[in-house]
């Protein structure tokens, strides 16, 4: 948002993204943008197509029509539509999942190290015979060191050597974020980060998300049902209903928007 040359510097923009599953229109003509450095919310009732939109952005689904553009750094931009998920990650997009997906049999540290693999230059056979390739060995040591400091920054250091599936729920969620950060993204997608948290934890989450943005110079797009979190942290909100964007604006505007209320609560509530 500091780049003065571009009037609107968007890190991610969707243009007319449509996805059909057979006869079902999961996402219809979705056009939206996320400004660089922003924290943007994507909300909507269950089944509105929010996670599907995430899956399109991260390459798990190829849209039937439309495209996604990603700008890793100001002034450059490329279409990522149709790239497989691992290439999307390479481009600088990381995400978490609604139902946590950690590598349960590995330690927390190993989870984070796996995240760093995408930026690792040394080939697997070099690290297998690390005694012959000192540069590769040094790189791998650095990866481990960085992983440890990432865990420390997210308050997970005491779990470093614990099996990931044995971590408490909240720690697993943070581990998923730590792992995503290890891929060195410029854009982070959070799928329901507050799910399963108590009020105190969700309140802490607000500061945590802002801290992530500032410390790791990220742009963040998040899906969330907890309205306190959404309204508290998002600078801009998009509302999805039955595959279509029905509104967008600042939190205060969204709160007052009758179409949004209707989508969430039904017609009667909107007119009451």
């Amino acid at each position, binding site marked *: 948002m500091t780049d003065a040359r571009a009037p609107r510097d968007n890190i991610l923009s969707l243009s007319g993204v449509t996805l059909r599953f057979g006869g079902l229109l999961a996402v219809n003509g979705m056009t939206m943008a996320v400004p660089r450095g922003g924290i943007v919310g994507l909300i909507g009732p269950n089944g509105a197509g929010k996670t599907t939109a995430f899956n399109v952005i*991260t390459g*798990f689904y190829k849209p039937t029509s439309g495209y996604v553009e990603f700008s890793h750094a100001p002034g450059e931009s490329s279409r990522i539509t149709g790239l*497989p*998920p*691992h290439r999307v*990650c*390479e481009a600088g997009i*990381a*995400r978490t*999942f609604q139902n946590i*997906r*950690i*590598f*349960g*049999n*590995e*330690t927390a*540290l*190993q*989870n984070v*190290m*796996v*995240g*760093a*693999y*995408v930026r*690792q230059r040394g080939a*697997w056979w070099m*690290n*297998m*015979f*690390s005694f012959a390739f000192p540069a590769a060995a040094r790189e*791998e040591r650095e*990866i*481990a*060191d960085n992983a*440890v*400091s990432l*865990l420390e920054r997210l308050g997970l*250091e005491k779990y*470093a*050597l*614990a*099996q990931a599936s044995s971590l408490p729920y909240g720690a697993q969620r943070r581990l998923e974020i730590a*792992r*995503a950060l290890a*891929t060195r993204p410029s854009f982070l997608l959070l799928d329901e980060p507050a799910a399963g948290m108590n009020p105190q934890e969700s309140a802490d989450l607000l500061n945590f998300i802002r801290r992530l943005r500032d410390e790791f110079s990220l742009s963040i797009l998040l899906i969330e049902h907890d309205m306190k979190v959404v309204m508290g942290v998002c600078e801009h909100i998009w509302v999805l209903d039955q595959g279509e964007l029905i509104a967008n604006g600042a939190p205060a505007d969204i709160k007052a928007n009758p179409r949004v209320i209707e989508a969430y609560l039904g017609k009667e509530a909107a007119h009451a």
Partner: protein
Amino acid sequence: MSTLPENKNPVRDNAMTVVATALLAAFLWWAEGHLDGYKIRIINLIAINAILGLSLNLIYGMAGMFSLGHAGFMAIGAYVSALLILTPEQKTAMWILDPIAPWLTGIHAPFLVSLLAAGLLAALFGWLVALPVLRLGGDYLGIATLGFSEIIRILITNLTPITNGPLGLKGIPSHTSLWMSYGCLIAALACVARLMRSNFGNVIRAVRDDEIAAKTMGINTYSTRVLAFTMGCFGGGVGGALMGNLITTIDPKMFMITQTYSLLMIIVVGGLGSITGSVVGSILVTTMLEWLRFVENPVTIGSLEIPGIPGMRMVIFSVLLIAVIIFRREGIMGMSEFSWDRLFSYRNRVTRGGGAS
């Protein structure tokens, strides 16, 4: 950086490894001089089965690909090695059904070269199989690899000019000594352990645990699996070659699905995903299979003669396999590994899940 899982006592551990290797060498030296041929053969077989189990465990336990094709890759290794070390005279004398392919008669190579060629050709076939088949997931992979293994066997049975067909190959020089098989085992253990300890090892396990999450982390899961599968096939080829050189006779019937089942038994008993488990499983299953031969042989106690029951060995074997999978699914080692640290400090068990320690 204090929490890094550094080796706490590298000098002691290295010393222990040297001592253990020396003890193994001393045992092999003693065994070679004092044990009879049958016992030496079983000790050899333990090492070969450990190599084979380890390679299947790499594919299945560590990378999570349910493959039932290992017998086929063993067959390729065994035939490649045998065809390379048999002399031209032996070859011309052996092919009765069809004359041998002329180009094949002259090819000859020393044993170690044949071993390497066996591994490489099995790996090449494995790679060719993996490219299409690993696009599938889960159960289909098992049945498709089983299919490939059967196709390889059918090809070997029918390509008589190259393989001597159903008659198989006889008189293979017996190169598999204790030193050879245990040398190969130690090399295989070192390679797999180093691989699984590197960050790429973490990646392989990650692909097994959650493929979708791994993709999101920027990992090309397909090429990772193809690579792990190909490496496992290399091990299968080398193991098959060692086996052929131990038994000195090979034929297509040796490489039926049963062969894959016993390897599966080894890694299920030992622990899917554990290097240590592959060795422990091989020791247990190999000795058990030999020991169970007594139920198939007639036993004479005094004047009482108990007739042997052919096939009973495999009945007990299969009951044990079912029992292990129902009552102790994780096998003996689970996914954990042996380390000196563990052995010395029972209390310090934070490094469960293995790998980084």
